[in-house]
């Protein structure tokens, strides 16, 4: 009996000792990974959101904190799609949905908001990452070796609102299959109402002047992009593939807030090899 209680108390102490009491500071601040070298692995965070989704401002805040931490190495696209993005009368009359966003939303079967994808990776078969895991997932892959260079050059003609975009892609490592290249337009700093239930972020239940950032507006080369090159076979390492596009900006978009976001991805599992963003006025 004594021996038994001894064993029991040892077992209990093992469980008890498995506790990490964290002391302050609980949060890391002031760090920045925003070093932009010529070639860096960049990571795309897609934030699936909607203006009547009460938990979405917290997700946007977290995305912003990650952006502060990683700088240019993290690129964010806010995809307004699904039920919570529907315009539903004042003050929620903005329609920030887009064809391309609706299609992505349906391809990846997103039903819960907010949720997101990190470089469209699918650890354990799971594309959709809940907000609480975004930071970990980004930090897991952001230091992976760079697979390709992607350069965006833009030229904007104010009169005609025509935007010319050139992409140059050079793979540094061989990959299997023929990659696809996708180019989209995002708009920053759109003011609109947003449901919110987190009083540490802003008014509840509605923030009337919420700043919607990185809003996906349109696809330039199709909702799923296009093949990186027309011929069959694997990509040639070191070859630079060039693509030129042109788009006329919608009159509702504020040119000063427009960016072009391009990414190259694996056509069979959607995983993103490299992503780049360029503000068109820079």
């Amino acid at each position: 009996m004594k021996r038994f209680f001894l064993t029991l108390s040892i077992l209990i102490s093992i469980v008890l000792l498995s506790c990490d009491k964290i002391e302050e500071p609980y949060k890391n601040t002031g760090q920045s990974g925003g070093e932009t070298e010529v070639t860096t692995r960049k990571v795309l965070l897609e934030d699936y959101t909607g203006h009547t989704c009460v938990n979405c401002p917290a997700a946007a805040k977290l995305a912003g904190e990650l952006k502060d931490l990683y700088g240019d190495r993290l690129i964010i696209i806010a995809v307004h799609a699904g039920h919570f993005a529907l315009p539903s009368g004042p003050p929620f009359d903005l329609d920030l949905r887009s064809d391309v966003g609706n299609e992505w939303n349906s391809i990846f079967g997103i039903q819960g908001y907010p949720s997101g994808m990190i470089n469209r990776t699918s650890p354990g078969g799971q594309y959709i990452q809940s907000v609480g895991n975004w930071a970990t997932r980004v930090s897991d892959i952001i230091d992976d070796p760079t697979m390709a260079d992607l350069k965006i050059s833009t030229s904007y003609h104010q009169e005609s609102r025509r935007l010319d975009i050139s992409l140059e892609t050079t793979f540094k490592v061989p990959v299997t299959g023929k990659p696809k290249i996708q180019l989209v337009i995002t708009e920053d700093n759109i003011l609109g109402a947003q449901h919110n239930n987190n009083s540490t972020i802003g008014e509840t239940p509605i923030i009337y002047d919420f700043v919607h950032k990185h809003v996906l507006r349109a696809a330039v080369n199709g909702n799923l992009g296009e093949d990186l090159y027309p011929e069959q076979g694997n990509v040639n390492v070191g070859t630079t593939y060039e693509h030129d596009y042109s788009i006329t900006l919608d009159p509702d978009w504020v040119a000063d807030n427009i960016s072009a976001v391009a990414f190259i991805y694996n056509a069979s599992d959607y995983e993103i090899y490299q992503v780049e963003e360029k503000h068109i006025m820079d």
Partner: protein
Amino acid sequence: MPSILFYVVLTAQNPIDNARINGSFQIDAQFYQPDEGIGITDSVIAGRKVGINGYGNIIYSQGNFSGGIRYEAYLGPIAGFDAQHEGNGIANLWASYQTSMIEITAGNFYEQFGNGLILRAYEEWALGYDNSLNGMRIVFRPISGLTIKGVYGTQRFYWQKFERNNRGIVRGLDAEFDLNELISPLQSSGTRVQLGASAVSKYQRDADPIFNLPENVGAFAGRLNITKGKFSLMTEYSHKINDPSILNNFIYKDGHAVLSSLSYSERGFGVILQLKRVDNMYYKSDRGTTSNALDISFIPPINRTHSYSLTGKYPYATQPNGEMGMQFQLNYRLPRGSKLGGQYGTNIAINFSQVNDIKRNPINDTTEINQDGTLGYKSGFFDMSDHIFFRDFNVEIDKRFSTKWKAVIQYMNLYYDIATIEGKTGYEPVKANIALADITWRMTSRKSIRLELQSLFTSQDKGDWAAAMLEYTIAPRWFFTISDQYNYGNPDKDSQNHYYTASLGYTREATRLALTFGRQAEGVVCVGGVCRVVPASSGIMFTLTTNF
């Protein structure tokens, strides 16, 4: 594992007297059709005209050994189930060996420590909820009156296989002492005392670049049950160390939960009083998930579970981030032959429950309440907020008039904070009065007719409802039902819909089949305070269950 399957096959061919196989199957199917009237268009259905959820659960036992397999297929999941259910395969596979002293299980298993405040692994088909553990479990009974349980494993997350670091690991220990059996002088005592203690720890790595997170989070609980004659007291306290997660906005405060229940019962009379306080008690094996999954802890609800369609329209979902509640229930049977009791006696049940938010005070002058990356807030043990989440006062009278006639009448007064419970931020709390009558006429020994009439009055949410249901039963095999729920008080005139259904059911041996045609109103289904939203639908529903 293949060797176990092989073993089963062998014994099936060479049946051994004490071998036994039992199990159950269920298929739930829904065929959806567009129904403009209730807002179901082709684009809502989006090509998914059929949803089918099904499972088969088979348990083989022989002597001290048992083993089981559970197959599930959601192709595609019925509307209202998380899309992550979509898939098919073996959900559970396990083997167990049991003697009077020890029981050891390898594979998938379910378990509960005490009331579940720090550990409960369970499965609830109607909710699409399953947080089974995949690992090992040992139950050890070294002496009479002492039970020790030890578990470790990872929890089920839909079909996602556990891989290193994709979610946490759970381990736990529980000891339960039955003092009357342990201490011989107490064996004949009229007072029965049971004590229990448990500890659980979860491990999840920290690779978060923003927060400095605890990788091991422990939770502890102690419980006491005393029964003396007609009185019974149950209480459990649990405590959890810092567990920042997406669901508590990454605050580092400790959590706790207390549940107490005092009851008295004798023939024809019973009262029960329950109290609880919950503070920051979400405890999941993935701190990042917001899915209705991966809970390690379970907070039992202390509210009456209503089974009629309108009294059950606004069910309470427990709020693990903080709540304080109480429930009081009185059951009384007016004796047979008394003036009010009549020839057959009359049962009266009075029930009241209320749940409030806890009061949260700032930790200092400069930090917002619940600010992420801080201790969040301070809340004393008796700090209750004025914010009411839920209140339910109901009275039920159940009376048999003759061998042929019987009736149940019920009144309910409800306060339901729809903003908190359903996440409909900005919506006004629902204040409703509900009345119903349920009358059964037993025509012959086999045939009966039952009529349900219900009315719900409220100025909030979707306004007033009326419901009627007529059921014809031919025992023991058949039943036929027609029903309608009419949302005549909907403030939006175009949404004043009828939700009519016609159903039939057939039962034979251990197989039951039910078929329903018609519309289903949007609603919330809760089991044990865990809820799922059921979207409105129209079409055919089919359920088949069989046990063997």
